[in-house]
């Protein structure tokens, strides 16, 4: 496995595609920064989603078996503070403006998208562990005797 090589390469040239509001908020803590890690059996990725509200973001994380990851969501309620019903007219808007966004990138290898555990951390990082795809089953294929 050339996991380390990949990490080096990806730091040089991260192949991350941003669309929507994730692309526009250039001066803001950027949405869509990606970390990718490799272990023997799994990949880990973290995606920075600052300002994406857990309760309204409708975040979806689509994982394909060839390792392609596509994250979608919506940034809402910029003019409405948490736990308040008052609406504010935004005068300075440096954080990501409201709207839909999507983030796409590739993991370094094929995965089994069923074996995944996404977590949206309270600090605004989406952290997902997904198992590598196990080419022909070496164990667990037969009942133990």
């Amino acid at each position: 496995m050339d996991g380390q090589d990949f990490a080096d390469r990806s730091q040089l040239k991260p192949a991350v595609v941003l669309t929507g509001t994730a692309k526009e908020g250039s001066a803001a803590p950027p949405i869509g920064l990606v970390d990718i890690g490799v272990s023997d059996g799994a990949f880990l990725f973290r995606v920075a989603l600052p300002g994406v509200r857990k309760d309204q973001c409708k975040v979806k994380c689509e994982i394909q078996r060839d390792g392609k990851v596509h994250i979608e969501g919506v940034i809402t309620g910029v003019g409405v503070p948490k736990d308040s019903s008052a609406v504010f007219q935004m005068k300075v808007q440096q954080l990501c403006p409201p709207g839909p966004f999507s983030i796409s990138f590739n993991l370094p290898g094929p995965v089994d998208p069923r074996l995944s555990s996404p977590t949206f951390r309270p600090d605004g990082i989406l952290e997902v562990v997904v198992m590598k795809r196990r080419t022909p089953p070496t164990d667990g294929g037969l009942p133990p005797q």
Partner: protein
Amino acid sequence: MSTAETSGHDPNSIQQDPKRPEETLAPELPPDPLLKSGTFIAVPQDGTTAELPPQLRRSSDDAAPACLAAEKSNGEAAPAPAPESAASLGETPPRRAPAAAPDWLPAGWTVEDRVRSSGLTAGTVDRYYFHSVSGSRFRSKKEVLYFLETGTKRKKGKPSENSDADTMEGSGGQKQKKSATKAKTFALKFDFSNVPEKVQWVLTDFSKGSWAPFTGDKKVPQTTVQEWEAAFTAFSSKNNGQKLF
């Protein structure tokens, strides 16, 4: 095991062959008169069983739990006892007879019919299935199928308790043990070769931080999600310190 469906709880899926032609005690048993072209005896089909003394009509199938017979709704239970009991009418069979394996039984298994020699139920034939590799003994087809599907031996208990393992409210120690077995079973049933094209994980409950997987546009059923979780847990813990590739 790789052929098993991930959601395959259905016991009927394996019982695809309703006929059990080899399941007779003695090889010299006359073939079914209905199948023999030259036969013209006008005996009704159930005539053979009607003549038998009741205690000899107990076959190994009858000795199996009642729920077993109830589950075989495909008519398998009805014809099977007739040839067996007819055979036990004839000359006394040996106490242990290696019987012909029924066709639903995979290779690596043997069947043995034992006749009870004493007691009130003397003469009753008990059928045993032996798994050659593990040496395990099974009393019924149901037990064998359960073993083939899950890789574990059935625990004694009420049949209802086994069929819906989700509602387990037992006594403390046993409950722990059972849930461990359950997780292992899920992991074993996990179909590694059949990886879906993609899975979409949607944040459903933000307060609990729970994610629901979707394949296509359909939400994955809860039982399947549990299997995935069990497999994920099993393999992420197994990955510690050992290479899988």
